[in-house]
């Protein structure tokens, strides 16, 4: 500890170089922690056994649709409790202002609402919504942001070709749903649901289905039920792909296994780059201080002590960068869910927050990077002879 002021004095001395190295290290640890948090959260969800809801889409991609007739066939599969259409509408109040966008879906409310108990409505609101084909329900966040209340009308236009009917769709707010964040943490209150029937009729009953939502009786049978559904349409023109809601959402925000690998690859590349930068900085620092190291050794500082002082300095820089990176990551993981579009998707998939093991690992990695970066310069200082170090260049 008595050498700490000595280390701190050096770290503070060339503050521009120290700050930029600390910042580089912070960015590295920030990237690591945020990427790992996403990977950790999503993979946790994907592995979650509680998959009691399935989502069916066209096997080719979400851009391709499925016939409405599938609904009745899916309902016959053993283990299926309920099926509802859920079409992404992509409607906006003003197509020129995409920032005001909130996700909106055309659903079959009679079936959809019992499937999604997380969206809580008063019985009167619920009934009003069911009774009005132009009715819609919105989350509390939308109501607050757009200053909407029950009975207010709302116009949306979709940018999607099948839903462009030459005029806006008109809706009436029939309910504002709330979410018990204790029971359903992370569930978005920034969505809108309306009647598929309204959409279908307004588009001349030509609307195909983008997704079916399926509730199953036994979550442990999710895979088997999914396979049975897909088998049903194997010989059809529109083959299906069924997966649990969590896997679907994970895939939708492109955080599946391959992307996790890519993210880890990016993280490793960044870390390696930072290692080189920090090692270069430390080498420069040691090279500049050759005489000083020679003086320390002359005064009686052993080679081992000089080695520890140089490494200590590198570790101090690494630790500062690590702590800063983790603080930034803490803010970032909280800010994710507030980001437009991706935030709503993330909210539905994962309960974001920087896990303690990742924070601890981040700081440990920063210290290890500092140690690795300082090792070679420290060894050079360790090995150098005093007479060589003191020779004036």
């Amino acid at each position, binding site marked *: 500890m*008595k*050498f700490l*002021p*000595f280390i701190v*004095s*050096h770290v*503070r*001395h060339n503050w521009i170089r120290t700050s930029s190295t600390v910042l580089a290290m912070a960015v590295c640890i920030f990237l690591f922690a945020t990427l790992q948090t996403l990977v950790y959260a999503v993979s946790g969800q994907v592995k979650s056994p509680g998959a009691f809801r399935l989502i069916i889409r066209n096997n080719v991609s979400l851009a391709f649709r499925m016939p409405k007739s599938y609904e009745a066939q899916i309902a016959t599969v053993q283990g299926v409790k309920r099926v509802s259409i859920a079409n992404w509408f992509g409607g906006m109040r003003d197509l020129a202002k995409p920032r005001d966008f909130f996700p909106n879906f055309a659903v079959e409310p009679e079936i959809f609402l019992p499937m999604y108990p997380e969206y809580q409505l008063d019985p009167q609101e619920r009934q009003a919504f069911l009774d009005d084909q132009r009715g819609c329900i919105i989350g509390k966040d939308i109501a607050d942001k757009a200053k909407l209340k029950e009975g207010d009308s709302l116009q949306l236009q979709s940018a999607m070709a099948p839903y462009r009917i030459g005029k806006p769709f008109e809706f009436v707010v029939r309910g504002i749903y709330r979410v018990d964040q204790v029971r359903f943490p992370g569930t978005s209150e920034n969505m809108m649901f309306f009647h598929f029937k309204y959409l279908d009729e307004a588009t001349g009953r030509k609307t195909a289905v983008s997704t079916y939502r399926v509730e199953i009786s036994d979550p442990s049978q999710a895979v088997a039920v999914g396979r049975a559904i897909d088998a049903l349409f194997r010989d059809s023109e529109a083959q299906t792909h069924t997966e649990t809601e969590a896997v679907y959402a994970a895939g939708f925000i492109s955080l599946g296994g391959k992307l996790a690998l890519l993210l880890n690859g990016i993280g490793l590349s960044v870390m390696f780059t930072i290692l080189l930068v920090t090692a270069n900085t430390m080498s420069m620092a040691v090279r500049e201080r050759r*005489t*000083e190291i*020679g*003086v*320390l*050794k*002359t*005064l*009686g*500082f*052993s*080679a*081992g002590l000089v080695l520890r002082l140089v490494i200590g300095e590198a570790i101090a820089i690494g630790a500062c960068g690590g702590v800063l990176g983790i603080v930034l990551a803490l803010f970032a993981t909280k800010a994710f869910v507030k980001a437009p579009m991706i935030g709503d998707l993330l909210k539905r998939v994962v309960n974001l927050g920087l896990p303690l093991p990742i924070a601890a690992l981040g700081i440990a990695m920063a210290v290890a990077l500092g140690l690795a970066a300082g090792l070679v310069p420290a060894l050079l200082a360790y090995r150098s*002879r*005093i*007479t060589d170090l*003191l020779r*004036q260049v």
Partner: protein
Amino acid sequence: MPPAAADIRPGATVNVEAVCKTYRRDSQEIVVLDRINLAVWEGEFVALMGPSGSGKTTLLNLIAGIDRPTSGRVTVAGADLGALSEGALAGWRSRNVGFIFQFYNLIPVLTAVQNVELPLLLNPLAGKERRARALTALRIVGLADRASHYPRQLSGGQEQRVAIARAFVADPPLLVADEPTGDLDAHSAEEILDLLQTLNREFKKTIVMVTHDPRAAERARKQLHLQKGVLAGA
């Protein structure tokens, strides 16, 4: 050739016996010191003089234990330096030698008092005790009021006085100075030489000083001349 019996003085603080130092540059062997014998008694103030390249600094480095001879033996304060490992030699230096450099070599990021405190970090002293001793050393060199100044805020003469305080703060019996006035104006050089004389006379420090300057050498009690690696005598 072995040293003459009269040259070996077992009671001396510094005893250099038949020391050779050679360097190899490519295939050529360069002899820097050639069978040097030297004894410095406790409390002596010795000036080592000689032209550039005569081996003065090399001899000083051998006496200070920061270099090793190619052959021969260097004994300082009872320790055979050749028999000590690198680690043990470092510990020995911290207890027995104070080094004064031509270009002061203060640590630029530390204040004057922190610089003086450096050798004490190697002793088992409490922080307050270290600071008190460092301030006392600064008072002796007349710079107590500059304790919190950084080297860049001091003149050359002041920097050298801080360096001298650093050299004697741990109370080593031997001080070695390599051209301590070489980078100073005449007035500052006089102050430094006064200080070294004070340390020699009042604090009984044994001093070995390398210098080019005859006026500086006159302050020493004994003057030795090195010529092409051979000690010419007092």
